[in-house]
């Protein structure tokens, strides 16, 4: 609002009036001002605003030089707004060193709004855009404008805004815009993908550099960073393009998942839920993400490949990736042993002991129960599991 100045409504040299609208209110940014219900005139150089009748009688009015306007935007009315009020946002450039008087010296906003309480008769947006392109205030354009000023007075073609055709046209335009912005967004994504190789290379060089300097670095953060890079990164992710058939692709993928996850699974007690597997593999790949289906298919292929990991499905349908060395008996024995040490456990506690998810802990307890190695106590305090004294003590 500090860009708006007091000025005389008299037209300058080469300035001509384009559009006049009534009942217009000015906003400083998002805030209403006391300048309301006035007359708005758009000229080739300025936007003038005056109290009703002020401009005709030549009294001082508010003026905004169009040279300060960066671009304009029409505020789209809410879907359920039935008022005729339309708003136009004018984004302004920084204030020039203009010392002349204005209604406000400072403003936190870099835009003002024009609110047309009654809507507008003429197509204000198009007119404004047109004027901004013409740049009549710039000296070089003056020459062109001098000749026939009447030609530029012709208002741009008025768009059909009413009726069903108008609505349809509006919708079409919106769709077109959305299409454009989507394709622009995907262009960016493609660029990102092409950049990805370089990024991977960069991370590799960093990790090798850190490896070289291993002796010198003791700083905790560096060690952490190094471990992130080394434990998570997959140097050359297996992609579908490099394989001829799906089976081969899944096999390659299975090998990759095994190398990436063997260590963490060993740390977690030999089992990892499929959701975790999916997340960790994709985090390790960074880009070239896998779909859940591909991950699952790759895990299914592990059994046949004699890999250190295999897919295991609990009776409830929950699937986990577990070490090949693990079988039902050893798992239930280990679970039973834990229960014995703690007298009794519930799913949450077992999950904490083993560092596994509660779902997984529950599955382990249920399978141990199924093997008769523990028994349940289902009370109002929740489900707990005890050593199976019924079978042991007799």
């Amino acid at each position, binding site marked *: 609002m500090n860009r708006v100045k007091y000025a005389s409504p008299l037209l300058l040299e080469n300035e001509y009036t384009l559009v006049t609208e009534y009942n217009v209110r000015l906003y400083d940014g998002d805030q209403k001002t006391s300048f309301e219900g006035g007359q708005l005139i758009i000229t080739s150089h300025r936007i003038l605003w005056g109290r009703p009748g002020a401009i005709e009688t030549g009294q001082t009015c508010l003026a905004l030089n169009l040279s300060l306007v960066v671009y304009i935007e029409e505020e789209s009315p809410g879907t359920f707004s039935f008022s005729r009020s339309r708003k136009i946002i004018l984004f302004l450039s920084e204030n020039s060193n203009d010392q002349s008087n204005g209604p406000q010296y400072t403003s936190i906003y870099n835009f003002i709004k024009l609110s047309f309480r009654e809507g507008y008769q003429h197509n204000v947006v198009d007119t404004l855009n047109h004027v901004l392109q013409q740049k009549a205030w710039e000296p070089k354009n003056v020459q062109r404008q001098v000749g026939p000023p009447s030609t530029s007075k012709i208002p741009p073609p008025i768009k059909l805004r009413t009726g069903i055709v108008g609505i349809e046209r509006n919708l079409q335009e919106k769709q077109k815009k959305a299409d454009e912005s989507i394709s622009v967004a995907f262009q960016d994504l493609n660029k990102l993908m092409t950049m990805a190789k370089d990024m991977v290379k960069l991370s590799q060089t960093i990790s090798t550099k850190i490896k070289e300097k291993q002796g010198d670095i003791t700083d905790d953060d560096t060690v952490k960073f190094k471990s992130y890079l080394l434990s998570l990164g997959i140097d050359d992710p297996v992609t579908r393009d490099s394989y001829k058939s799906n089976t081969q692709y899944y096999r390659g993928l299975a090998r990759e998942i095994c190398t990436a996850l063997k260590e963490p699974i060993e740390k977690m007690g030999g089992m990892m839920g499929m959701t975790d597997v999916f997340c960790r593999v994709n985090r390790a790949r960074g880009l070239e993400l896998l779909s859940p289906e591909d991950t699952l298919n790759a895990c299914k292929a592990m059994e046949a490949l004699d890999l250190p990991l295999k897919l295991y499905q609990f009776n409830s349908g929950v699937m986990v990736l577990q070490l090949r060395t693990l079988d039902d008996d050893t798992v239930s024995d280990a679970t039973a042993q834990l229960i014995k040490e703690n007298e*009794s456990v519930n799913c949450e506690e077992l999950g904490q002991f083993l560092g596994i998810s509660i779902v997984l802990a529950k599955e382990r307890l249920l399978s141990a*129960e*199924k093997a*008769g190695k523990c*028994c*349940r*106590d*289902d*009370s109002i*305090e929740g489900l*707990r599991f*005890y050593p*199976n*004294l*019924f*079978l042991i*003590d*007799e």
Partner: protein
Amino acid sequence: MADVEVNWPWQYSFPPFFTLQPHPETRSKQVSAWKTLILEYCKKAKIYTLDVREASQWPLFNNAAINRKLDSSVIISILSELAKNGNAAALDKGRNRWDIYWHTLEEWASIIYSYISDSGLQNTVLTFYEISNGADTESQEFAGMPIEVLIKVLRLLENDQKCELILSNDMQGVKFF
């Protein structure tokens, strides 16, 4: 019913005892432990009939020390198991009221008949009250047996031609042979 001296088995203070176990082998051990405990308890407390709705409040099915309680549906299923061995019988369709036979009816029959023959009471007419509440039978195991249960036992003996029930209005009794 409350104050009965029972040597509670170890299972009684083991919380999973009060949850029906899904694992078949575990469950059969659990149920058989329950069966033994119920018969033991009823024998000590001289309980011949029970109503599940009431019995679920007894200490038998309610261990206040560990705050566990056997669900009445589980009680019913265990009683049904007992019924298979002739140790219990449901009295109504909803299976809420039960006769508990800590001796099966056959066992009772032979116990009573051996008492009769031991005391030389054959060919004598005895009232039901004399058998279950008489001064002479006070020391016997079947003392305090409800008339309804006693009749069921005697019916068995009648089938074996060892006695004859007299069920006329003015006198209810039995004559042993």
